[in-house]
């Protein structure tokens, strides 16, 4: 599961923003992908549901790229025994 976190995040963003997932990489930033602040909040809401984690506000504020999102998910999943 943890290995494909990046790919899952890429797929979620691709679906929400109707983008080609092949054009999204772990280095892609929200700005490059056209995610505004409301889109980011929406993405993090879906991530909480998908991975069964709670993303604290201070962590949410550090999520500005696909790689940062995936890293935060891994950290939160490791700290949360109930996570998917």
């Amino acid at each position, binding site marked *: 599961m943890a290995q494909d976190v990046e790919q899952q995040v890429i797929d979620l963003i691709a679906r929400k923003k109707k983008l080609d997932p092949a054009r999204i990489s772990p280095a892609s930033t929200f700005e490059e992908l056209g995610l505004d602040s*409301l889109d980011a*909040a*929406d993405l*993090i*809401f879906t991530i909480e549901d998908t991975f069964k984690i*709670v993303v604290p506000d201070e962590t949410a504020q550090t999520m500005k790229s696909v790689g940062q999102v995936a890293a935060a998910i891994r950290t939160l999943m490791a700290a949360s025994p109930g996570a998917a």
Partner: protein
Amino acid sequence: MRRVAVTGLGAVSALGIGIAPFWERVSTGVSGVRRIANFDATGFVAQVAAEVPGYDPAQHFTDAEQSLLDRFAQFALIAAGEACAQAGLTLTEAERDRAGVTIGSAMGGSVTQDQGYKRIYADGAVRLHPFTIPRIMNNAATSHVSMRHGLRGPALSIGTACAASAHAIGEAAEMIRAGRADVMIAGGADAPIAPGVVRCWEAMRVLAPAPAGDPSRACRPFSRDRLGLVLGEGAGILVLESWERATARGAAILAEIAGYAATADAAHITQPGVHAPVAAIARALAQAGLTPADIDYVSAHGTGTRLNDGTETTVIKQAFGAEARRLAISATKAVHGHAMGASAALECIATILAMRHGVAPPTANYTEPDPECDLDYVPNTARPMSIRAAISNSFAFGGLNAVLALKKV
């Protein structure tokens, strides 16, 4: 003072989507009240409501749009689209700065709020969708209409409960009169048919229970056997323009908003008064340069509650004196329900169409005269008649009254 022309109308209601089904059913007294379909109302006192029949958001909005729009804002956008199309509204960049929006809503995004509370209290969730606030906020309908149509002038949401869209139309007309705007999209929207909201209304003991047999007969304004109000939903939107702008561009003018007055009872939070509504009628007529003898038709607030309909009858008698018995009065809530913040706009639209078609719509479901309500309510059958001018009454909980005076063009 400048004159105010109505150049576009749009409606979403229990009678269908669009002005055509709305007028067809208002003018023939065909009720849109049915058993509640939005949720399972088993065990509720009020198992009937005036819901928009067969509404499918996907026919009107993309998935991305739907995620940002509560049902009430969806209704507002659909009705505004129809009204703007009828008006043939095209605005230059400079004109956009002098074109605005006023939309009334009693409850805002109540379905979203209700679902959010269920998620927290019943389902134990700690996180709600991040679009929850933008969907719930009372000004969402105003903002979305402003964004969709590129209107950068004055934009307000008005929260005066059951009179909200009368205040919205009246205040929009005042802005045009005062030269603060040249075009205003004005009206109201609400979508309160959610379990939590219906329970709140039940607690007030003003909702009509489902009658045995035909649920469409639940709302019976001015009839002796009236049982209470029936909640409804929808949106009514008008395009208002300064008279000179409308005539200069050759727009078809549907009616004139000739007068408007707002007054407050300053007395009781729910019980309707008499003095302030009478004053509102008198001031609206005065602004329009009309006398009681000039008015042929009254669109009543007519909720179907025992208290409103009796009190409103007294109000009309005091305001019109000897002319009261000559007036054709109807309460169209019998067919489109009490659509809260959308009601007054739907009734204003019905009044405009009544003037244009020369037909007073009936008060449907009227069975029995009430000694307390002894005026001419056009019972059950539409009446062909010339309507030179009319008023539309709206009296909200909290004692906030709005009256619009309309002239035939």
